[in-house]
């Protein structure tokens, strides 16, 4: 596919987008004429599954793909840049492979977006009229940016080989692509921000100030959270792709390359996920600042059970990442030396996981309720944020140590100050762990506001300082280190690849569930406090129903992703045959 000329490629992309958009408008127009008029309060009910479930599934699928096509270019360009500066062909290849992935995913993203674009005005005409009245101009800017993004994306992809000798300019095109992506993300986040934490309108929903309607409480923290989560998610999908290719590889060379690709992608995913809790915290603070009731409902009220599920899954992801790193020691010459440390890391992560998933709200039988009551001393202590923040930071620190061990396991430092360096490393790890634990315990004794605004940021700060210091120390200590042997890429058991796939599936499910919680925080409002949802579906579904729908979305998403993987493999085979024949 990359053999096409740049012009042909770009024109193809633009035509594709225009056809999709044009078809959507035509379909919308036709359906409006054909379907019966909406109810008096502005709804059309989709039979069988209902309008809400339909929009939920389509919107989440569209969002998953959008996250992918916005997240992957960030690290594709970074890889291309690094490959160019270090003259590393392998980095350039991985960047190109990532680009192949997201260019193919663009079409699916646009198609799903088109389905959503047709569904929303048909099923919720009054609500969409309101949104257009308040934020209509942003929609037209969105279309313009979308054209810009498609142009740059296809240009970036189709010019890859032709601009081999002008890498600097090509990287700049990639940067422009990311600027476009971030603009799109900002626009769409402003819509969600307005629906959840509205501003700039009167109590009756009349526009007072459009900029205020865009610049809501949620806008920037949500955009930041989505931006980072998109990178994590995109890298996760790339890791799953690499794992899939590893499992189906026919040669050792292929296995070696996809093993390396899986490792690189997984480390990008987990690296960026380190900052997600901090940004999530910021988002939470803004929601509380907008409306305390919404904050309590999201964190401790009706949605408390979903946080327990979230905790279980995030803990499982951390375990799977560490598992992958520990298994990876098998392929490192000299890696065996470090297995003795794995058991300590395991204990730390095991205990961290136990604290992290301890629920505050519990399901009790009558007998248990009689004996325990509503308050349990252990669950009361471990089920609150003070302990959870501490547990997750310690677990992240242990994960970083697993990563550091993997990186240095095939090296032997030769600097004269090795012993001092190792002592400093121990002091850094023990000192920061003690500091984080101490701050965690002290958090129980101070007012909540001090914990939220002072101690928790300090805990995260200590953690980041520690990992930066460890990274710098290792860089100095292992400079010019004796290499025991090169990593045996490809020498990994298949179960390690299933761990990568499991991480990505869990991320996807979590994204769906967290998205539902964020939307559910509005309860029976389309626009919180401004426009009520008066449809028969204006109720929060049970957690079981929500989980089933999120699971359906996840399965559908991976079926579509599998289709993309299959298409790439088919195209590759086709290109190979053409070259051979």
């Amino acid at each position: 596919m990359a053999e096409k000329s740049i012009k042909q490629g770009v024109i193809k992309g633009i035509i594709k987008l225009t056809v999709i958009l044009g078809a959507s408008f035509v379909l919308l127009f036709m359906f409006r004429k054909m379907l019966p008029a909406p109810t008096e309060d502005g709804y059309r009910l989709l039979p069988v599954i209902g309008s809400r479930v339909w929009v939920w599934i389509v919107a989440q699928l569209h969002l998953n793909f959008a996250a992918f096509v916005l997240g992957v270019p960030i690290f594709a360009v970074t890889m291309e840049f690094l490959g160019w500066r270090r003259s590393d062909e392998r980095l350039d290849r991985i960047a190109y492979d990532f680009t192949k992935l997201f260019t193919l995913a663009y079409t699916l993203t646009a198609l799903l977006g088109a389905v959503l674009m047709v569904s929303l005005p048909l099923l919720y005409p009054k609500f969409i009229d309101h949104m257009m009245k308040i934020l209509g101009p942003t929609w037209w800017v969105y279309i313009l940016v979308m054209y810009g993004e498609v142009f740059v994306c296809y240009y970036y992809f189709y010019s890859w080989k032709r601009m081999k000798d002008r890498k600097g300019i090509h990287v700049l095109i990639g940067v422009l692509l990311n600027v476009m992506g971030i603009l799109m993300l900002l626009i769409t986040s402003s819509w969600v921000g307005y629906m959840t934490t509205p501003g700039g309108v009167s109590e009756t929903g009349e526009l007072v100030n459009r900029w205020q309607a865009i610049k809501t409480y949620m806008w920037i923290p949500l955009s930041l959270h989505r931006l980072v989560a998109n990178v994590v998610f995109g890298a996760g999908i790339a890791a799953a792709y690499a794992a899939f290719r590893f499992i189906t590889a026919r040669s050792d060379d292929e296995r070696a390359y996809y093993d390396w690709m899986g490792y690189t992608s997984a480390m990008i995913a987990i690296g960026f996920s380190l900052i997600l809790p901090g940004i999530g915290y910021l988002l939470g603070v803004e929601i509380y600042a907008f409306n305390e009731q919404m904050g309590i409902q999201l964190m401790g009220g009706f949605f408390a059970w979903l946080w327990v599920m979230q905790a279980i899954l995030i803990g499982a992801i951390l375990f799977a990442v560490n598992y992958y790193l520990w298994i990876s020691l098998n392929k490192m010459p000299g890696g065996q030396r470090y297995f003795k440390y794995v058991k300590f890391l395991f204990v730390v992560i095991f205990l961290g996981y136990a604290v992290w998933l301890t629920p505050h709200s519990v399901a009790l039988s009558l007998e248990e309720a009689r004996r325990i009551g509503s308050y349990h001393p252990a669950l009361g202590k471990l089920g609150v944020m003070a302990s959870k923040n501490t547990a997750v930071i310690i677990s992240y620190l242990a994960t970083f140590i697993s990563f550091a061990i993997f990186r240095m396991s095939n090296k032997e430092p030769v600097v004269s100050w090795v012993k001092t360096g190792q002592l400093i490393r121990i002091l850094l790890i023990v000192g920061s762990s003690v500091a984080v634990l101490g701050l965690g315990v002290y958090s129980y004794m101070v007012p909540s506001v001090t914990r939220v605004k002072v101690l928790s940021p300090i805990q995260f700060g200590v953690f980041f300082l520690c990992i930066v210091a460890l990274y710098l120390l290792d860089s100095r200590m292992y400079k010019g280190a004796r290499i025991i042997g090169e990593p045996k890429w490809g020498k990994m058991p298949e179960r390690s690849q299933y761990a990568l796939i499991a991480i990505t599936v869990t991320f996807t499910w979590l994204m769906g569930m967290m998205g539902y919680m964020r939307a559910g925080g509005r309860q029976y409002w389309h626009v919180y406090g401004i426009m009520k949802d008066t449809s028969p579906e204006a109720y929060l579904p049970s957690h079981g129903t929500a989980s089933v729908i999120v699971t359906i979305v996840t399965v559908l998403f991976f079926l579509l992703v599998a289709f993309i993987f299959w298409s790439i493999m088919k195209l590759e085979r086709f290109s190979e045959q053409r070259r051979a024949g």
Partner: protein
Amino acid sequence: MTNFYPVVALLGLAISLISVFRKSPFFNFIGIQITVYGLLKSAALIMPPLPGQVITMYMAMSVFAFLIYFSIQEETFRAFLEPMRAVLADRDKRILRVVLVFILIPLLAGYIAYAKTKPSFEPPVSARIVHPEPPQQIDFRGKTIKILGLENPLRKDTEKLKDYIEEGKKIYYQNCFFCHGDDLDGKGHFAQAFNPPPLPFRGTDTIAQLPESFVFWRIAKGWRGLPPGSAPWDSAMPAFEDFLSEEEIWKVILFIYEASGNKPRTWE
């Protein structure tokens, strides 16, 4: 029965230790799971028992985590699978295989089916939310009070604060003490009669986690103001708006925080 669980934990530990010496990760895994289960159940010796839901969660985590642990190194993983492979494939394990496939597994399946279908007179497990969300506003004897952002008006009057706390103490002993206790530990005279028992106010993980507006709402509206997720039918807390004035409720709140050594949660 509770005294029996430390023995279970010790038995598990013994299996685990023997398995380490005999280099059998599979039985080490089994021993560890028995130990973890015994320890979780033994917690009831020093505190109220852990709920079944929490034990299930911890056990699932333990199984998941240790399966991971025993599959990190190729050799250990092979040794871990060996007993299963041997039972399924070795000729000399034929009797064990037959017993397992034709007797033990059907018996287990039968028992599970029986346990799931036998009639039970236990009410269904209640998934109660400990920290319910307050409403935006409440109707207090015909007056609308906005709960969001509400502050204790008496706290600003620093000169009279001591007097208010003293008055709050009297109100507490006339109204709350019977259930919530002399020591504010939720162990009042009537406490044993309620299911679930009244909440304690001591400790940094009780009312210190709540703003005063929340406590005001709970006292004023009692069980009937709880949202459905918090199972209002599972609470005996009266709606004190029927017995106390707005100011009296604020006074008793001052006393509860003062006497328990806690500070209310604030956002700024």
